[in-house]
């Protein structure tokens, strides 16, 4: 399976994703340059975390206009798999590939911390290797992870099972006290209606190895690889 990891100026988690895919999972992985307007020739595209264009103006707002994004939109339209992690999620919402907006955390601070997530369902290509209802640890590190969308949109997301991950505690409780950033309905990650585009604020690549925290996150990547084979 071929993975492409996009490098936007200041996407600082691109190398981390690359490392997990190529060194830990032995996948054929390459970088995609933000200025490239060539058609995407990988099976999966990853928009990694970081601070594309310094997160100036609004997170993801400037990156969305990079030439490569036209290609990503085209690729997603044809059913290609796209994952946006953290800043990548922000770029996906700015570019309209996913609904909603990531606003400032309600605490108004950057939060870097281990974080429990509830896997809402395992029907998605991105969550196959989990069981529905699993509680996993997947760290967060963001200033703007407060997911917002209007009621209508939220209702649709709920109804269509597009919410893949929610913030919770160690025992899977999903409520205000287990919501780190103010996201509507504790939303941590969603997919588009077609199911081929995933955006999530937590960093699965940061919990992909036992020596660092835990390896709960690697199953997300393994889910994709398995569904391809």
């Amino acid at each position: 399976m071929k993975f492409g990891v996009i490098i936007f100026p200041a996407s600082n988690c691109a190398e981390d994703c690359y490392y997990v895919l190529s060194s830990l999972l032995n996948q054929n992985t390459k970088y995609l340059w933000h200025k490239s307007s060539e058609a995407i020739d990988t099976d999966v595209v990853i928009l990694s975390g970081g601070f594309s264009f310094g997160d100036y103006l609004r997170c993801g707002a400037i990156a969305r206009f990079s030439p490569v994004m036209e290609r990503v939109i085209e690729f997603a339209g044809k059913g290609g798999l796209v994952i946006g992690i953290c800043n990548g999620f922000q770029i996906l919402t700015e570019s309209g590939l996913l609904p909603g907006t990531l606003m400032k955390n309600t605490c108004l601070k950057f939060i870097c911390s281990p974080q429990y997530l509830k896997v809402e369902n395992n029907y998605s290509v991105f969550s196959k290797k989990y069981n529905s209802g699993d509680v996993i640890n997947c760290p967060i590190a963001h200033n703007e992870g407060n997911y917002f969308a209007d009621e209508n949109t939220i209702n649709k997301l709920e109804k269509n099972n597009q919410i893949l991950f929610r913030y919770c505690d160690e025992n899977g409780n999903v409520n205000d006290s287990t919501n780190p950033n103010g996201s509507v309905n504790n939303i941590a990650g969603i997919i588009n209606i077609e199911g081929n585009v995933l955006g999530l604020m937590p960093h699965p690549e940061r919990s992909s190895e036992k020596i660092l925290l835990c390896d709960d996150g690697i199953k997300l990547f393994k889910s994709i690889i398995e569904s391809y084979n």
Partner: protein
Amino acid sequence: MTESYKQVGLSEDEYNLILKQLGREPNELELNLYGVMWSEHCGYKNSKLLLKMLPVKGERVLQGPGENAGALDIGDGDAVTMKVESHNHPSALSPYQGAATGVGGIVRDILAVGAYPVANLNSLYFGKLEKAHQRYLLAEVVKGIADYGNCLGIPTVAGEVHFDDAYEGNCLVNAMCVGLTRSEDLKTAFAKGPGNSVMVVGNLTGRDGMGGASFASQELTKESEENRSAVQVGDPFVEKLLIDACMEIFQNENVIGVQDMGAAGIISSTSETASKAETGIEIDIDLVPKRESGMLPYEVMISESQERMLLIVKEGKENEVNKIFHKWDLHAVKIGNVTDDGMIRVLNNGIKVGEVPAKSLTNPPLYKKDIIKPEYLNYIELLDYKDLPEPDNYNKVILIMLDNHNIASKEWIYRQYDHMVQLNTVVTPGSDAAVLRIKGKNKAIALTLDGNGRYVYLNPEKGSEIVIAEACRNLVASGAKPIGVTDCLNFGSPEKPDIYYQLYYSIKGLANACNKFNTPVVSGNVSLYNDTEYGSIYPTPTVGVLGLIEDLNHITDIKFKNADDCIYLIGNFSNEIGGSEYLFEIHKFVKGKLPELNLDIELYTQNAILEIIRNGLVKSCHDVSDGGIAVNLAESAVTGNFGIDVSINSNIRKDIVLFGEHQSMFVISAEKKNENKIVGILKKFQTKMSYLGSVTDEKIFKISVNGNEIINLDLAQISENYKNSISKMF
């Protein structure tokens, strides 16, 4: 002309020296260049001779002081580079920008030696948080460090924060950066090869931080508070591009020398690189890409615009270099050439506007003063413990101690730092030291940044020895062998005899300890003139120490891991509590004798601990420091989420046993079955241990002294006081 030297911060003698060296009067531009280059900040006039006491050589030293950052060999051809630097004055005036640009500056120092920055650390000292302005400073400084470092994708993995009235008018913000590279790829800052090109890369040059360098060498006064153009604005986005572009450019041989542009911008980077290489540099300021129009030549020369670097590039390779910067949406512009005449020659649109010998700019007069013992040191150590009432409720005392901001968890701060990016941070903030694994190798590095102004104030030499010893202890407790030091000397005005004495003896103390532990000083920084209307800060050397862990299995942290593990104490009690947090918090004294430190015993004990860790015999290890054994136990219990049942025997006072900051002391937890093996190893190092008790499933924190139970608290309460003390201030 005659009096204008004063305006640029030079003395009459210094001005006369310039006249002699030039054989004529300097013009205004030239005078300004001397002004910044001969400031303490750039020229180290008052400190350079003292710094010679520090050991700088060792089998692992690849690059010592004199380069942008020091470098140490960690085996297999890998090199770790590091440096710490102060941004105290800018942070006092504009805490957010001051701290942010402090991070930016130190990262460029690491970049300038050709290394990829892998970790940031910081050391922060403020007045007490009960005061609104100090809360503002803390919040802004932390946000500045976070916003800048997080954007760069460099994990901020460790540091220290202290609160004491001594820093009320003059906070300390020291930033440290650590880089990783291959030994053969280390870069130096030499402008070699006449004919080669001098290029500036990165951001445009504007009127930022005009005269910041000489400004940082003056006391803060009401007037300088007005002088606010000295504040620069950071652009972490461009810095990140600069890092990525430089890493790419370093892969070929076109770049001969690299120098970051920090204090005194173009003039310091050109004169330093030329002076080191015994060459000269001619530049035309008209070629410097500027952000503002109408900048005067001296403004261009000394501007402290951030995110710029100077490159010495092989003649004819300018386009290749520019191409790579272009790819990253940056420019690389040729502004001049290396020459062979030893002069820094400044042209403006082809017309010469100034010319001075490079070496004369980089060799200011060096001063050595008489060393006169300050009056206060004659009585500060006098303290009769009989006058101190012994506490009657130890539950209350330990809760107060944990609630003390100097001791309480710093989680509110480090949550704001991305400490995980780059996927190397094995031990995250909140333990004794941060541990980063080296990808693809079975080894890791441990890092800490530490200081103790109160100790150094009470006894500059001993206090400074303790600072190094304690930093090394943090590494050892993490399973690492300390291998090298970077230091930042934060002191008051060296023109005051008391301060000069503190500086001298502090450096001597650092040297004693570094010699003993074989941890040479590979880089550092000096920040003097930390005085305000209220007086000088405590003399505060902060030291960043690097440790090496040669097997990932040896990585150790402070958390208790399993119920029924045994808790042991290693080391001996000291009967002195001068300078301790306990004495300060409970009895409100800053006096007395420091706890005894014997450097030989310290070294044995550290080696013993390392040996038992390497034999896989310990579950957790934590050194005794601020707040003593009681706080040490509470930290391991809270972070591991276990109770303890411990009893200590000693014939000294209970409060001194529990809260004294005994040196060369560690607490470990281990399985009972390993006890004999541990004892056996300790014997070889002439070190003893005593059994204290055990880790328990019951969430109760129990300590007895000489058979009497004097502390019995719910872990939840201990945890509440320890964890929320700082966050509840905001």
